């Protein structure tokens, strides 16, 4: 195995860093990583679009993640997502026009006992019902 191939192991790590820094993977970062690791841009594009962690579009200030693991599913997680979609007027995967919210789902956060679970920028909300959705959103809608 040649050394240059071994450099590729840094790729996902670098993409994580980039995503964290900018909130997405900008085109210029792809070129930069390509030069640094000597991997073609198309290869990098292929890798980053394969994984859910990376996006090519900037995300909102607040990232709302609704868990749709099996336990959350049987306890009504889908209804929570739908309510979020209605309230924010965006679909899963989209960002609101004011760049404030991005709505996403996840397949399991591993805290199944307290589902349905919603996470906003790392803060966990447990046992969510449709009624509680408004209160969660208000917490962030009013903040700047």
């Amino acid at each position: 195995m040649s050394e240059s191939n071994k450099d590729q192991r840094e790729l996902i790590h670098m993409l994580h860093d980039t995503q964290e820094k900018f909130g997405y993977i900008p085109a210029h970062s792809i070129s930069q990583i390509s030069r640094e690791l000597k991997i073609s841009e198309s290869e990098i594009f292929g890798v980053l679009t394969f994984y859910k962690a990376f996006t090519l579009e900037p995300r909102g200030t607040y990232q709302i993640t609704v868990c749709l693991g099996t336990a959350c599913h049987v306890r009504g997680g889908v209804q929570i997502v739908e309510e979020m979609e209605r309230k924010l007027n965006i679909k899963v995967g989209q960002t609101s026009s004011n760049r404030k919210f991005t709505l996403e789902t996840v397949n399991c956060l591993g805290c199944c006992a307290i589902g349905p679970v919603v996470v906003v920028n790392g803060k966990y909300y447990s046992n969510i019902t449709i009624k509680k959705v408004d209160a969660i959103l208000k917490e962030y809608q009013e903040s700047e």
Partner: protein
Amino acid sequence: MQKINNPEQLIEWKQKVLSKRPLYKKIIVVSSGTCGQASGSLQVIEALKHELEKRNLEKTIGIEITGCHGFCELEPNIIIYPEGIFYKKLESKDIQKVVEETILKDKIIPSLIYEDSKTGQKISQQKEIPFYKKQMRVLTENNFRVDPTNIEDYLALDGYQALANVLFNMTSEEVIAEIKASGLRGRGGAGFPTGKKWEICREFSSDTRYIICNADEGDPGAYMDRSLLEGNPHSVIEGMIIGAYAIGSSEGFIYVRMEYPLAVKHVRIALEQAKKFGFLGKSILGSEFQFDIHMIQGAGAFVSGEETSLMASIEGRRAFPRQRPPFPAQEGLWGKPTNINNVETWANVPLIINKGADKYSEIGTRTSKGTKIFSLVGKINNTGLVEVPMGITLKEIIYDIGGGIINNKKFKAVQTGGPSGGCLPAEMLDLSIDYETLTKAGSIMGSGGMIVMDENTCMVDVARYFLNFTQEESCGKCVPCRVGTRQMAETLTRITQGAGEEGDVEKLEELAQTVKAGSLCGLGQTAPNPVLTTIRYFRDEYKAHIVEKSCPALVCKNLIAYYVEPEKCVGCLLCLKNCPVDAISGERKKVHVIDQELCIKCGACLDVCPPKVGAVSKYTGKKRDRILKKASKLRALSESDGIK
């Protein structure tokens, strides 16, 4: 901190740690894994610190912040030692009372202790609670005692002694023989004998060998690996170092799922500490053995839990699986022999060395040895992580430990093994939990997720859920999986929407066999299991959806209608105010009516209607048809009224 250079120093260190520990009168242990933190454990810890400081008790009363205690349902919870008093669902406002009454006066606070939902019995001792009493906590026991961010806690409990023993008293062959004799099998799903796996990897001659800890725990509803990494990361790391010594590897990787931020953090801290103390790096514990571990963070792809995909991901490529053979033991990471085990398997290793294979293999059945951690979730009273000996029955787990079904509803099925497993019905509750029995029933042990479903769960919907999941997570490399899961998901969606046709079930069965036989990796090969088992055990439900266009469990939206019972409605306006689409009309003290055309079936009205009123019902089948007919008549009437 100085490196530990020989086994004697390790023992000295342990004694030093023990002797410098303050002699607390009481220790308050706070469960603070992800579930705990999500439920407010951090606030409880703050309040505790504040309260103890206020009363100048910090020197006499200790606070130990640990990982998850397993009883997720009752988070945040604390245990007060030496008495072992268990307090559940604490809030900051309870803390003052806890300190005043229990810490200072040794009085138990009745409102905070556990109450058995069936018998009404109040239990103050953690060990006496049925949820804990019937478990056999071997791997998870130290989660009560270890602050995962402090290696000294692990050392105090004889941590890394198994490693010292292995490095100085055993040859690699002897370690492998010991693991083989223990009967340990992989806890990640397939159940391959661990010792045999190590031996195969060791036998391929190569200058470099790698070992990997698979912590890409992607099965929805399974989180025991998260709990182990969060709560006791050194046990996993020690297991890996022992494995590396046995296999002859000098570099290892822990691949952690990115959805587990706390586990990532604790593993990072644990690795740094292990390096500082000389458990990783060059000349470990003064021996000639060297080994290092890197942590890799996943990037959100379920398929990377499959071993060949995982290796591709570590190499920085798309997580595509590949054909086996060659197996990873032969050609793995960067073409070198590689051994992959999952988190729970690694955590078993130090235990086997410490206890001895003979003692370890006393637990379990003839073919499945040791304990297994299950995550008991879904419609069950005592949700949480339970560790039980292999061979226990499903019934014992669900009823004795789990406390039965929420609200005394009827048990319908238990789903084991995540998207690769199947749904087992009530007739199977007496099954013994071991690798062979579960496979024979059409499901698998898998990583240990156990999702309990009651009469209000629609089995066709569950199959649809899993197939949507695998369809989305299929990497797309091979056709049977890519196209097959999609076709199955679409057919199932159609059935749940009331557009199923005669022959759909047979088509699903045929397709399932093709996908099973033709797929490249485990994801595709096992993806049809949820469909096949639900058809096998719940064929009537499929029939109801297809022929009668009804959903007996009242779940599938297109087949149900919400209805306000006129004789029960008290006209309180609650449902009307909470309807997100303003589909309910009515006035105070007058019967409310749902506009069936506007209704999106979100269930908000049913949620908010006070239980003693209970005026909102769901209907399916003929009754639903009648409700819809009546509604459309009413609508026509009011429209013609409007014209006049």
